[in-house]
């Protein structure tokens, strides 16, 4: 079995700050991490490898420094990794990104058994690239997967839908996106890190994966950014100090609830 996992390096949005004067992102000092949802996807792949034996290949598209997340993936147990990096990919929206990643997957293996993504990346939050890749690969798609079992070329997965769980069956190959209700990601072992540090990571550009220039980066992106602005701030309402007189605070809460027809 060959499983390909796609991971993205993202700024840890929990620590992203906005410059209040210019309303722009301040990246300085913000750590780059493996997209948390992708960690769950990688974990599902590694669990299948543990159970059945599988080759796990991890692909990341991003700047040269995204190599770090690929080394992390190797340290956790990925067999091989590829960094998809090229200035020609700059400015890519989800269509151009899906195309470039699908081209890279085809070069790794024209017929992988499973291709796994995290549900979404925490910087873009679109959840569109996994489904987009399934379209370019012409492979069935299952989203919001929380567990995967395979046997004999077929898979059974549980998916976390809005109002409960669906159990879905199908034949491989398939593209899946994984949610955080899946198993907690493992830690990398020390020996894993030592080995991963020494590995030379292959870098592929647009030409290496046979990507047409017109479909890459800005030129291949139908969506354009018109403007960027700071989110509207809702200003706080009534403030109370409930430390001295908690009963007054309780009264105020009750009143607020009653105003809305509750309690």
């Amino acid at each position, binding site marked *: 079995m060959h499983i390909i996992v796609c991971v993205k390096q993202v700024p840890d949005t929990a620590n992203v700050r906005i410059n209040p004067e210019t309303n722009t992102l301040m990246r300085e000092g913000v750590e780059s991490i493996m997209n948390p949802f992708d960690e769950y996807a990688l974990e599902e792949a590694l669990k299948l490898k543990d159970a059945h034996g599988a080759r796990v290949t991890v692909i990341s598209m991003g700047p040269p420094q995204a190599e770090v997340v690929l080394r992390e993936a190797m340290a956790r147990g990925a067999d091989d990794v590829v960094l998809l990096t090229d200035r020609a990919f700059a400015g890519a929206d989800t*269509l151009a990104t899906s195309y470039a990643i699908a081209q890279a997957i085809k070069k790794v293996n024209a017929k992988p058994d499973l291709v796994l993504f995290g549900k979404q990346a925490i910087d873009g939050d679109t959840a569109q690239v996994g489904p987009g890749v399934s379209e370019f690969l012409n492979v069935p798609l299952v989203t919001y997967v929380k567990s995967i079992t395979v046997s004999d070329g077929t898979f059974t997965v549980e998916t976390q839908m809005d109002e409960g769980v669906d159990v879905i069956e199908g*034949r491989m190959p398939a593209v899946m996106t994984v949610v955080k209700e899946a198993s907690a990601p493992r830690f990398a072992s020390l020996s894993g890190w030592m080995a991963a540090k020494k590995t030379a990571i292959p870098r592929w550009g647009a030409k290496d994966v046979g990507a047409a220039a017109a479909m890459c980066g800005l030129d291949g992106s139908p969506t354009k950014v018109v403007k960027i602005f700071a989110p509207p701030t809702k200003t706080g309402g009534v403030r109370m100090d409930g430390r001295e007189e908690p009963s007054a605070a309780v009264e105020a809460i009750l009143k607020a609830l009653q105003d809305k027809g509750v309690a």
Partner: protein
Amino acid sequence: MADTPIIIDSGKCRGCKKCITACPFDALYMEGKLAVLRPEECRACNACVKACPFFAIATNAKEEVKQADLGDFKGIWVFAEQHHGQVQEVAYELLSTGRRLANDRGCELAAVVLGHNITDSASYLIAAGADKVYVVDQPELAEYEANVYTDALNQLIAKYKPEVILAGATAVGRAFFAKVAVRSRTGLTADCTALSIDKESHLLHQTRPAFGGNIMATIMTPNHRPQMATVRPKVFKMMTPDSKRKGATLMEALQLVAASTRIVRTERNAMSVNISEAEIIVAGGRGLKKAENLEQLKKLADLIGGVVGVSRACVDAGWISAAHQVGQTGRTVCPKIYLAFGISGAIQHLEGMRASDTIIAINNDPNAPIFGIADLGIVGDLFEILPMLIEAVESKTKRQ
């Protein structure tokens, strides 16, 4: 030189750093006295192009070849998601917004329903604002399957050429719209919180949060059709349905591809919550200190007819399932009342609940960010206030 979204003319750059301040993405930096681009961070927003006083920065976007037939695409469509014949609320919210957009654009508003035994839904969709309803009623569409749904909608797009298509940013909408957009080779903007028709270009302006809600971006799809967007549930208000509204129902019979996966079992039990639809949410965070204290929240929630929500910290600590998590990596909620106990209000959390009607926050830290958006903010000890509140509500209910 490979293509980058913008080009900096080093002969013209005077090192004034105006572009660096202007860039929302921190994609420019100084190398000596010259501005240099980190192309991988650039989103081609052209803020630097406008900011440069020396005209040293130019956009590198090639004059796009427009699809010759852009003008053939007409009308606004809303994908009316239904589960077992029940049209989802978000579809009605989209119809009310779609109605406004269609009026601004001077075009028709249509709803599209895919499913089986769903013909009844057409009259509701017309009452909710649709001029026309396309119904595909076939057994293969009874349950959502990404490939079959993609095929059905793409056939309709190819046949009728809508200018704009909207869907709810639900588990179903987000996944299969991404496939539809790729198959049509057009743009899709996810999770929009505002939509409008630009007066000059007549294009759909799609606004969405990015970077965990730290910034908002307005996006358009100028040269590809249809223009596609998914919209968060509960962002737009439903219109009051008008049963006197007239509209046309068009039944479509399609030759569809076979499903590639099938649902073998569906688990919907009383324990599964859908906090996105809740009217009242009693939420807790790290300040609860331990899992047992969630019981108190549950008790209050039961008393006032609400559900329990939590911040990410509680889920990461293993206190409760991720289905209860509010925020960027959890669910977006928009209840009438959001009671927050011991939630400080990380931006990711606020992003998921800021649209709530009334926010009541109780926290012992006077500087907790959640107070910035709370309608009623109480600095205090939740372990003191929560039991008193439960008691007060209990005694009130008994009296009634």
